[in-house]
């Protein structure tokens, strides 16, 4: 609690400081103090609680008011609305209601016999950092140069021309979290992007979405660094590595807290030296950066939870998490989401006990289940992967409704990414991220027909004008 309060205070100070930075001249001219006021640090030397140095330039594509009428709507709040109308206006969901006629001036989309869901959110993607074509020059997702690379940000590897963004959108994906790979204990920062074609990474970066920190348990770090005869070479080496890093991060965070506290009191203070690696870890300790923890085994998850307690941070989601079902009660109690597959298992020892029922069992225990892809092909059909998980649950007598399971690929990943206030459900006021499906999205035959991002039609299966292609694909081969 104390830590949280201190963190909140620090955030406020940071906000004030950020304000100072933009109005620096007026602040100094209005100063009446005889002693020279502390000069704000240049942005690049301040710790990370200041403004984002790589700010989003994303702007929604302009759109006309649209009414999707007569569809079966899964709102991802547990509701199924038959003969539903979904109104999109000014980039936002305006209204979702059964039997509502399209208001005058709205473009009408006939949804009869079709289904509407929120835009799909892929909580684990490497699009852009492991793009197609899969060639060394572009395979930029793993900074395999040391077990702690918290200082790297996936957004700086992201190639916006990855054709996979377009094919993902054609599968209904409107938001993705792009993570660094899992070679390291701390792989670096993730970035959450809007799935729109863009010249720049910043043009996709989702405003207001918190950063994530990719951490990795288990076989990958110990295999990679053990293979180089350095630490970590074992599971226990992994844990020592996490803890040592958090000790440093806590000290670093305290230095900056002390610095800002002194500034607040008008005392003279020397700014600590900025450290990009510790910036990110300190951001986690302040609760601003969400931990996205690659972790397959239940016993390792339990250890990671203890580490998070020891250093006072929260794990947002375990990724891959093949054994989450063995720890579902704990995950429910701790409020930690589980991002997993239905079909993947057995490709390595730590995934040996992965079962199709994982998401269903986690869901049934009252915990937050997410179906993710980690794959440029699977991301195109997360709805079907969710169907496989749902079917396996039902096979085992666990009855889960489709209107609840749809949350596994919409509302629940939004929650784990810290963007549920913006998207992930069809609720008035949220971003109009919407998919119109040709059939029930839990069917293998369902295809995304229209995909809206912030109310704008970004994909239309029946209209080539809304099937964008990457620069890479121009002039290459036959369409």
């Amino acid at each position: 609690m104390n830590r949280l309060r201190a963190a909140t205070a620090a955030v406020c100070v940071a906000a004030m400081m950020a304000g100072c930075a933009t109005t620096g001249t007026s602040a100094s001219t209005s100063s009446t103090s005889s002693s020279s006021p502390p000069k704000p640090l240049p942005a690049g030397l301040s710790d990370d609680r200041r403004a984002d140095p790589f700010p989003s330039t994303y702007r929604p594509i302009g759109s006309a008011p649209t009414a999707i009428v007569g569809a079966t709507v899964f709102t991802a709040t547990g509701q199924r609305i038959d003969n539903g109308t979904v109104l999109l206006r000014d980039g936002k969901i305006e209204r979702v209601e059964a039997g509502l006629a399209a208001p005058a001036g709205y473009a009408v989309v006939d949804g009869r016999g079709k289904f509407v869901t929120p835009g799909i959110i892929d909580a684990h993607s490497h699009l852009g950092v492991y793009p197609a074509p899969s060639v060394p020059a572009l395979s930029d997702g793993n900074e395999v140069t040391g077990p702690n690379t918290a200082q790297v940000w996936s957004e700086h590897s992201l190639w916006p021309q990855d054709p996979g963004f377009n094919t993902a959108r054609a599968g209904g994906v409107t938001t993705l979290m792009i993570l660094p790979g899992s070679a390291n204990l701390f792989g670096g920062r993730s970035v959450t992007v809007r799935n729109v074609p863009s010249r720049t990474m910043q043009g996709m970066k989702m405003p207001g979405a918190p950063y994530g920190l990719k951490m990795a348990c288990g076989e990958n770090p110990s295999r990679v660094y053990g293979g180089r005869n350095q630490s970590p070479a074992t599971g226990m080496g992994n844990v020592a590595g996490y803890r040592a890093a958090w000790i440093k991060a806590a000290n670093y965070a305290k230095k900056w807290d002390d610095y800002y506290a002194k500034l607040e009191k008008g005392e003279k203070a020397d700014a600590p030296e900025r450290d990009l690696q510790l910036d990110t870890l300190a951001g986690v300790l302040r609760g601003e950066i969400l931990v996205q923890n690659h972790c397959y085994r239940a016993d390792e998850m339990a250890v990671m939870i203890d580490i998070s307690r020891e250093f006072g941070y929260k794990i947002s989601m375990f990724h891959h998490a093949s054994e989450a079902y063995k720890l579902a009660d704990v995950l429910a109690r701790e409020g930690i989401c589980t991002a997993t597959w239905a079909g993947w298992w057995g490709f390595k020892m730590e995934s040996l006990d992965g079962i199709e029922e994982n998401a269903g069992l986690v869901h049934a225990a009252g915990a937050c289940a997410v179906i993710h892809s980690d794959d440029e092909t699977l991301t195109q059909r997360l709805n079907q992967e969710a169907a496989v998980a749902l079917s396996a649950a039902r096979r085992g007598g666990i009855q889960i409704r489709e209107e609840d399971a749809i949350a596994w690929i919409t509302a629940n990943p939004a929650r784990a990414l810290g963007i549920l206030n913006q998207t992930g459900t069809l609720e008035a006021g949220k971003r109009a991220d919407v998919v119109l499906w040709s059939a029930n999205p839990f069917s293998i035959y369902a295809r995304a027909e229209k995909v809206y991002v912030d109310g704008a039609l970004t994909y239309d299966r029946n209209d080539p004008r809304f099937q964008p292609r990457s620069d890479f694909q121009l002039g290459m081969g036959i369409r």
Partner: protein
Amino acid sequence: MSRSYLKALACAAVLALAASPAMAETVAIINARILTAGPQGEIANGTVVIRDSRIEAVGANVRPPAGARVIDAQGGVVTPGFFATGSQLGGVEVGALGNDLGVNNPDISAAFDVSYGLDPSSTLLPVARLGGITRAVVMPEPQDGPGGSHAHDGSDDFAGSGPDSVSHALFAGQAAVIQLAGTDILVKPRVGMVVPFGNAGARVAGGARGAEIVALKALLQDVRDFARNRDAVRRGNYREMSLSIADLEALVPVIEGRMPIIAQVHKAADIRGLLRLAREEGFKLIIEGGEEAWMVADELAAARVPVLVYPQSNLPASFEILNATMENAARLERAGVTVVIESAEGGAHRARETRYNAGIAVANGMSYAGALQAISINPARVFGVGDRVGSLEAGKDADVVVWNGDPFEPLTQPTALFVRGQQMPLTSRGIELRDRYRNLNTAYPPAYTD
């Protein structure tokens, strides 16, 4: 209460099966929509009779024989058992621990025969059965070639990249057809010779794809010389050969047109080149991968060359597949090419997803009947077991699956499954894990549950 009673019943059923695995019996599956994948096509409501290991009758007007055990499909669907083609089943347990399907040995390349090393007790077989898979075409894996399993968690680029010195071997070895039941799972060995082409072929040939064709022509000439001068070669009274005697012997059926080359090839230009090579050298050809095969569809149809496809490929993941499209299967079908649908990533742990891939092909324009054939009778025929299995026809092996709905749909599950007439329990190691951990609030630790 009732659930534990049901569980006890299920256990009893499993025990009964285990106690008498080869029990001969007659089974009639009634009240079923039957998708035969054979000459009878679809039967809206009919009966399938299984006697011992064979299908005895299939039809709308078939009566259950007296004394038959009757399974009421309750309006569900009955299909032949499906094939996992391009599979590692029986040859792998945990992907990262390696498999028994790849050989890096200068004396054993073409001669490598996967059928000798397959494991009938692999835990992957029951898992695949839960997806309706009753047969698999197990293929050897080229060195430093495509396929194989990789860790799907962003660790690909440090997973190791195969042997440092690729052998001169162009041949991965010989594939086999297996069944997913019994202690002897081998159905038919040596059904095809796997050879990587394109980028992968260029790598094993020294760097350029053109070099592979030259090397292959020279090797096949050696095989012809060997076939005509076996004794001299064996005695050492002949010029030096580029392959071991075992490898030369294994390639004789290829030059005689009896064993097809399963060419792992992707790019349209490479496929065209292969069609010409096959004509010149007189070998039979099967295309595996074939992401750009749709661009060569008419030529493939004319040459009667079947194509094994993965219907989800649609990204320009390499410069070999810039024209990959999910409509590949549909376009090949329209041109009259025999299409076989594979599952992904070696078709081992994920072999159970084969039925979804058939559905994805349908969602992208393939006919339903064509997609069904592409995972049943087509692979059976392409790999030489079409007279025994692959469709529901009287006299064939009773590989039969009962489903509670459309088998391509994820929300459908199998309710009964037979391999050569033997009903297999619908369970797996995964199901046992589910049952062990479905209730986490037990007095004793989960390890005490069965």
